[in-house]
């Protein structure tokens, strides 16, 4: 069965339909639409300023679109505020790392579970009943699965502010995983990472999907990684979808090549686009 057939077989977990977003007179997104198949890794790419982060912010509820809808598991969530989307199972990381700087790694990760906890103030003060039970449960899940999985055991009690960049990115991913997401949105997961860190992160993304069955939607500039990992690629330019499909389809699209590199020799540019993919493989 080809990837395209597979996509038709199951209903999409996330649907973006005719999304339009404007800041004053500037249109950041125009009629953007695509589907995210459950269990897939879908990448959104595009030149700087194409509207990728705006799209992410709209899907996660930071921005209210002027038109269009966002559907999560068939349910229209366009008007649902961001904190409730988090509870529904939509987690994300940020392009500029947004960890709680004064806290330890463990506290940061545990905060990811915040939305799912029900402890009240009296439980917490006495550390009794629900507070104790929830904390124990959380600890087990966080410590045994997430921390081990992301190989950050050695820094669990470290303050996040002091960690190197690559590790901070990993902690942010751990925090998003603690949210028990169905869809994990990663905004440039490997931006600014060296080769080795990038490969580690790519491995984690693949493993997250395998172990947790989490669907991944990411914005990324590293073409090699996008082409290697993704099942489906959506290309944005000037706030519009100019192409989407499998990595191979997208790479073969002359429109995409033009968007990235301006008009030119298509064959030459296609070769350049593929080069990093081959190097990473």
């Amino acid at each position: 069965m080809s990837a395209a057939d597979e996509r038709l077989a199951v209903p999409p977990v996330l649907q973006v339909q005719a999304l339009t977003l404007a800041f004053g007179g500037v249109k950041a997104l125009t009629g953007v639409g695509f589907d995210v198949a459950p269990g897939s890794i879908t990448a959104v790419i595009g030149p700087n300023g194409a509207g990728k982060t705006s799209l992410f912010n709209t899907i996660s509820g930071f921005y209210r679109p002027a038109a269009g809808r966002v559907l999560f598991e068939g349910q229209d969530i366009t008007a649902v505020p961001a904190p409730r989307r988090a509870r529904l199972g939509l987690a994300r990381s940020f392009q500029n790392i947004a960890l709680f700087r004064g806290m330890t790694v463990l506290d940061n990760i545990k905060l990811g579970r915040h939305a799912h906890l029900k402890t009240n103030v009296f439980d917490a003060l006495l550390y009794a009943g629900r507070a104790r039970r929830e904390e124990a449960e959380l600890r087990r899940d966080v410590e045994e699965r997430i921390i081990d999985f992301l190989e950050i055991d050695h820094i669990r009690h470290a303050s996040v502010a002091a960690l190197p960049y690559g590790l901070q990115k990993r902690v942010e991913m751990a925090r998003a995983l603690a949210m028990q997401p169905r869809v994990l949105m990663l905004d440039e997961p490997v931006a600014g990472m060296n080769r080795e860190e990038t490969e580690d992160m790519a491995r984690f993304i693949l493993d997250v999907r395998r172990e947790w069955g989490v669907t991944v939607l990411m914005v990324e500039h590293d073409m090699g990684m996008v082409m290697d990992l993704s099942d489906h690629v959506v290309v944005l330019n000037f706030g519009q979808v100019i192409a989407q499909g499998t990595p191979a389809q997208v790479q073969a699209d002359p429109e995409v090549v033009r968007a990235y590199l301006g008009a030119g020799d298509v064959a030459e540019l296609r070769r350049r686009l593929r080069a990093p993919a081959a190097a990473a493989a």
Partner: protein
Amino acid sequence: MMDWAYLFEIALTGIAGGGLYALAALAFVLVYKATRVVNIAIGEMLMVGAYLFFAFAAGFSLPVWLAILGAVLGTGLLGAVIERTMIRPLLGEPPISAFMVTVGLASILVGLVEIIWTADQRRLPEFLPNAPVMIGDAFLAPKVAYGALAALVLIALVLLLFRFWRGGIALRATASDQGAAYMMGINVPRVFSLAWVASAMIAAVAGIVVGAIGGISSTMGVFGLSVLVVVIVGGLDSVLGALVGGLFIGLVEALAGAYLGGEYKLLATFLVLVAVLMIRPYGLFGTHEIERL
């Protein structure tokens, strides 16, 4: 020749009095940390707490514990109303707008108190034990001692809640990164309300104690002036700064009052303020803002 026993006694009084500054400063920092609003009306919220206690205890002759509870809840409610009606609509406006609103709020609260209770000075019913407290050979005025004790207990409680309660953790997370907190499923507007309510409640307790020591009047809001000095010295967004700053300013005031004379108290405090602002403009423990481009 220094009289060490006398110095010890003064220092002790200063630190005990500083406990109240620390408590009120904590109320201020709570709001600033969570919402980035500089609440100039903190002294007036203190005053409202004290007057509500006066109304419940003297007006309705309720038992003291009930009057305290009523005053704390009433002031908390006031905090919620202020946040919802005056501060929330200004979300996203420049910080100066919310700041100016709190300046106006201070006048409104003073006006309300004068309309209801007149501008006369009043005494709160006696409810603190008045046997003198001796620490070693040093004498400590009982009201100051018990006031400091109350402040200490409440500060400890607040710190515990900050550390272990979900709402407290949500508050810390919001203070650290609003966007990320929002994405974690934390209801940020509710955290804002929570911060104002908690701040108002703490201010009420501080107000009751301040009123018990020195009586209440519509001008007792000037206590807030010293609290502002405390938080600027300690750092607007630092809980530790509020605590250390409170004790420090209390100590400075007591020493200046004892050795230079009462009229030098404020002079000494503001000299400290100027010195700190020259050396560390963001306060002793405040975060040096780093803007990301």
